[in-house]
C-alpha cells in the first residue's frame, strides 16, 4: 500500500472527542518514525491546513506515520472553544502520542507550528513521554504576547467598523467579568487566555530531547530575534543539537490567500530523514 491520503478519525480522551487525520506510513519503504503535529491556533490553524497536509503526505510517503489532530473545540473536533483549556489539550496530545506509539516503535517527533510549537516544547518537557525530537515552525515563544496579538483582532475589527473604540484593558475586563470574550468568531475563555498567557518557551526544561530543528519563515532574510537566540543558546548549553534555518517565503499561516512554502517542506523533510536515520539502533549510516 502506498497511498498516503490521510484517513480521518475521531479520538476520545476523558470524554472529549476530537478529530484527527492519520497519514499511514508507506509500507513499500522502511518505517522511519512517528510524527505528531501540534497545530497553530485560530485563523493561523485554518490558513495552514493545506501546508500541514502537504508536509504530512510527503512524510507518510517516505515512511513516517503522521497524526494531525484538531484541538478539542477547534476545527472539526467536537466541543466549543469556550470549554477548551490548554491543560486538556496537553492531555489530549499526550493521548495522541500514546496512540501513535502503541502501533509503532521508533523515533517519535513532535512537529509544532506557531502556538503548537510552544505546546510541543511543553510536551517535550514531560519526561514520561518518549519523545526526543522537535520540529518547530515559527514557534510562539511567549504566550502573553501571543494572546495580546490575538486580542488585537477584535480591536482591529472595532476600529474598522468605526464603532466605539475598544482598548486592551477593556477586553481584559470583559474577559474577567463574563469569563469569555468573542474575538473574530472565536469564543476565547478566560481560562484559556490565562493558561496560554502564562506560558513561556524558556520555562521548560527539555531533558529528554536530543535534536531540534527550528525553522523561521520570513518574507525577507532576517536574523533570529533576541529571545529566540537566547533560548537556542540555552539549549546548546544543555547539550541539545539545534539546527536553525531562516527560510525566505510566505508566512502561510497568516497570508491572505492560502499559500505554502515548498522550501520549508523540503528542508524539514531533509532534517527529519537525517535525524531519524541517525537514531536507528546501530545506524545504517547517513550523511
Amino acid at each position: 500500500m502506498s497511498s498516503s491520503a490521510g484517513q480521518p478519525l475521531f479520538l476520545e480522551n476523558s470524554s472529549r472527542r476530537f478529530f484527527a487525520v492519520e497519514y499511514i506510513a508507506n509500507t513499500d519503504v522502511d518505517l522511519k518514525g512517528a510524527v505528531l503535529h501540534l497545530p497553530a491556533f485560530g485563523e493561523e490553524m485554518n490558513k495552514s491546513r493545506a501546508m500541514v497536509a502537504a508536509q504530512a503526505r510527503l512524510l507518510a510517503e517516505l515512511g513516517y506515520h503522521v497524526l494531525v489532530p484538531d484541538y478539542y473545540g477547534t476545527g472539526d473536533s467536537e466541543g466549543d472553544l469556550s470549554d477548551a483549556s490548554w491543560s486538556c489539550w496537553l492531555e489530549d496530545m499526550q493521548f495522541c502520542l500514546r496512540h501513535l506509539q502503541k502501533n509503532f516503535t521508533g523515533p517519535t517527533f513532535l512537529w509544532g507550528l506557531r502556538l503548537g510549537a510552544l505546546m510541543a516544547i511543553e510536551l517535550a518537557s514531560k519526561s514520561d513521554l518518549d519523545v526526543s525530537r522537535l520540529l518547530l515552525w515559527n514557534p510562539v515563544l511567549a504566550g502573553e504576547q501571543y494572546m495580546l496579538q490575538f486580542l488585537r483582532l477584535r480591536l482591529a475589527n472595532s476600529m474598522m467598523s468605526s464603532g466605539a473604540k475598544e482598548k486592551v484593558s477593556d477586553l481584559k475586563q470583559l474577559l474577567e467579568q463574563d469569563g469569555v470574550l468573542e474575538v473574530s468568531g472565536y469564543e476565547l475563555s478566560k481560562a484559556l487566555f490565562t493558561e496560554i498567557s502564562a506560558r513561556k518557551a524558556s520555562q521548560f526544561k527539555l531533558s529528554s530531547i536530543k535534536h531540534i530543528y527550528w525553522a523561521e519563515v520570513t518574507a525577507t532574510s532576517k536574523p533570529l530575534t533576541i529571545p529566540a537566540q537566547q533560548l537556542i543558546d540555552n539549549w546548546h548549553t544543555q547539550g541539545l543539537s539545534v539546527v536553525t534555518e531562516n527560510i525566505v517565503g510566505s508566512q502561510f499561516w497568516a497570508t491572505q490567500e492560502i499559500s505554502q512554502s515548498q522550501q520549508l517542506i523540503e528542508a524539514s523533510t531533509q532534517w527529519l530523514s537525517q535525524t531519524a536515520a541517525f537514531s536507528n539502533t546501530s545506524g545504517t549510516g547517513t550523511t
Partner: protein
Amino acid sequence: MSLGIQIKAMIKEILQLNYDINEDTALLGGIPEFDSMAVVTLLTAIEEQYGIMIDDDEVDAEIFETVGTLISFVEQKV
C-alpha cells in the same frame, strides 16, 4: 532601503498584491484584502522588523487611511 519602501514591500507581501502601491494608495476601505487579520499581521510585522512596541491604544483608523499615513506613523515610532 528607506522605511517607506520597506513598509510598502511589507504591505504588498502581507496582502499578496501583484500591483504597485504608493503613498496615496488607500488602505482601509481602499483595498478589499485589508481586513482585521491583515491589520494585526501588519502591526506585528512592523513590531518585529523595527523592534518597537506599538501600544494598541494609539492605533486608530486614521493610521491606516493610506500607505502614507501608515509610513508617517511608523516613522515617528522608530
